[in-house]
């Protein structure tokens, strides 16, 4: 085990996988000499050279598409989007091309490609640089959707992503890069997709969350514990594929569920999980599944407003109590 930041964990896995497999390469804006504006590719240029560590022009559709083509032809590109908000500029290449090619081509091509980058609030970057866009990619078939919430998950899930033979959307969170945590030194350490992480066991209500909300939920769990409320916290880790089993099992135990995400509430992934829980565990539910998500509002620049848009830590306890009909 080593203590690493989330960004170090990411960089180390990229480097290890590039050492092991010549087919892996990385491209994106400012990732070479500068090492990425969030330092996730620092030092890679020096070790692997400019063929495999490429600065791109500011041409998101162009270089994501080049990743799709390179993947079709046997390479395993990692494409960094500086902000996941910029995925919109490459949306056709992601959702009409990368996601659909294998299927439309009858299985004759595979697209082993990771599109990774950070998203979310926390740096006052305003509306076009603070979104959480993972839900969009959950809806359209053909891409896997990954949400690491800690350094060890960043490492374990990224390794799986790089080795996956399919397009993977890998959503980092800007406010997690500096988080430190233990990461296994095993250069084969990986976390399978589709296995949720039970962060904390509990019996009174299930809180499903990821990214920043894992820590926030843990903080609230302690407070709730003092009031004899014992919550279970589950981080799905991947949205596609999704670990229904673990979540349904938990809800059957607790009878109550709350989903918390930074993405907008309306038509966000919380809706999918809530609807699924209802479909699969209706008779076990003692209260409606609740969802906490960002208001239906562009992320504002001002800090106070920003906080008014996304769920706050205390909202988790409030929601838990609501499902327990405690006022």
């Amino acid at each position, binding site marked *: 085990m080593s203590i690493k930041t989330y960004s170090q964990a990411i960089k180390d896995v990229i480097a290890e996988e590039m050492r092991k497999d010549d087919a892996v390469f990385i491209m994106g804006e400012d990732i070479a000499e500068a090492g990425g504006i969030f330092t996730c590719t620092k030092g890679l240029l020096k070790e692997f050279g400019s063929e495999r560590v490429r600065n791109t022009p500011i041409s998101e559709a*162009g270089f994501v598409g080049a990743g799709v083509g390179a993947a079709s*032809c046997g390479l395993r590109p990692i494409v960094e989007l500086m902000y996941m908000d910029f995925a919109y500029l490459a949306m056709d290449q992601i959702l009409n091309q990368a996601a659909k090619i294998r299927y439309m081509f009858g299985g004759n091509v595979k697209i082993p490609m990771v599109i990774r980058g950070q998203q979310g609030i926390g740096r006052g970057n305003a509306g076009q640089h603070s979104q959480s866009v993972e839900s969009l990619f959950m809806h359209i078939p053909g891409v896997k959707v990954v949400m690491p919430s800690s350094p060890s998950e960043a490492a374990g899930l990224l390794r799986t992503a790089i080795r996956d033979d399919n397009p993977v959307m890998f959503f980092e969170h800007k406010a997690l890069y500096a988080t430190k945590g233990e990461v296994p030194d095993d250069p084969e350490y990986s976390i399978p997709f589709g296995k949720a992480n039970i962060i904390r066991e509990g019996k009174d209500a299930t809180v499903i969350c990821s990214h920043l909300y894992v820590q926030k939920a843990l903080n609230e769990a302690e407070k709730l514990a003092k009031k004899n409320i014992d919550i279970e916290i589950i981080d799905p880790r991947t949205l596609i594929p999704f670990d229904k089993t673990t979540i349904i099992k938990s809800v059957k135990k607790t009878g109550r569920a709350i989903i918390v995400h930074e993405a907008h509430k309306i038509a966000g992934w919380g809706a999918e999980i809530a609807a699924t829980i209802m479909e699969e565990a209706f008779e076990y539910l003692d209260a409606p599944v609740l969802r906490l998500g960002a208001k239906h509002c562009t992320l504002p620049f001002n800090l106070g407003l920003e906080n008014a848009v996304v769920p706050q830590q205390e909202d988790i306890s409030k929601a838990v109590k609501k499902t327990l009909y405690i006022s």
Partner: protein
Amino acid sequence: MIDKERLIWIYKTMLRIRKFEERALSLFESDKLRGSVHLYIGEEAIAATVCSLLRDTDYITSTHRGHGHCIAKGGDLKKAMAELMGKETGFCKGRGGSMHIVDMSKGNLGANAIVGGGIPIAVGGALAASIKKTDQVTVSFFGDGASNQGTFHEGINLAAIWKLPIIFVCENNEFGISVPVKQSTSVKDISVRSKSYDIPGHTVNGNDVFEINKVMEEAIARAKKGEGPTLIECKTYRWFGHWIGDPQLYRTKDEVEAWKEKCPIKTLKKYFLDEKELSKNELDEIEKVIDKEADDAVEFAINSPEPDPSTVMENVFTDIVNF
């Protein structure tokens, strides 16, 4: 320079495309085939000549008007026709149809129903060759309309700065559906746009195999020497409507007829006869063989099974099948 053998190959290839599409058209008209079918008839010289210079290991990306590219790159007529009919034996097991034919065994990275969508993908193919240090070249086919997509600009710029072994072949058939080039495109010759990337650009008669061949040979040599991409514009014309049933109010019958006079197949046939490279008998024999090939493709396609609906979830991913 085109040697006799290659010239005959080009001729046969053009004829193969023509005969294939004539049958596709009649199948469509008799409701045996559905979906979007865009005919390449009239433009065969481009795909045939370009691909006569490529090996199976070289890559192409194709368009919504992709039958010609597929066939010229060595694609099997049977699998192509089966795909048009949505059959399990088609190139894509009936999942893709006319606009999504792929043939990796011949280096065809696939057709694309998004105008301009294939350009960055081709750049990626060339990037793969460059990273792997092979001598493969990539050709990206696209239309005049596609040259106004952002991907055209982003893709060529990428290829130019990375000096990738790729040739951008713009098939300028004067229209994007109903819109004439001059209404949509700010330059007369699209090859002028090469200047934006500091790469060579050529405009040639897209119905003339010799002209196309000359610039392609240069472009391939350049690509293989690591000097980067070339943009080639081939001026041509599609004989049929954009889709079957297109009222074609945007052009006159006379204009179409005048272009039919410039038929690349007829021209090359005449060349063979004039130069006494091939006799009338030999040419008839070629035609007979290809007619048969095309008929066989139709028969194969018609007799092929439909895909089994229970397999519909296969190949969304390489692994997960159930959700």
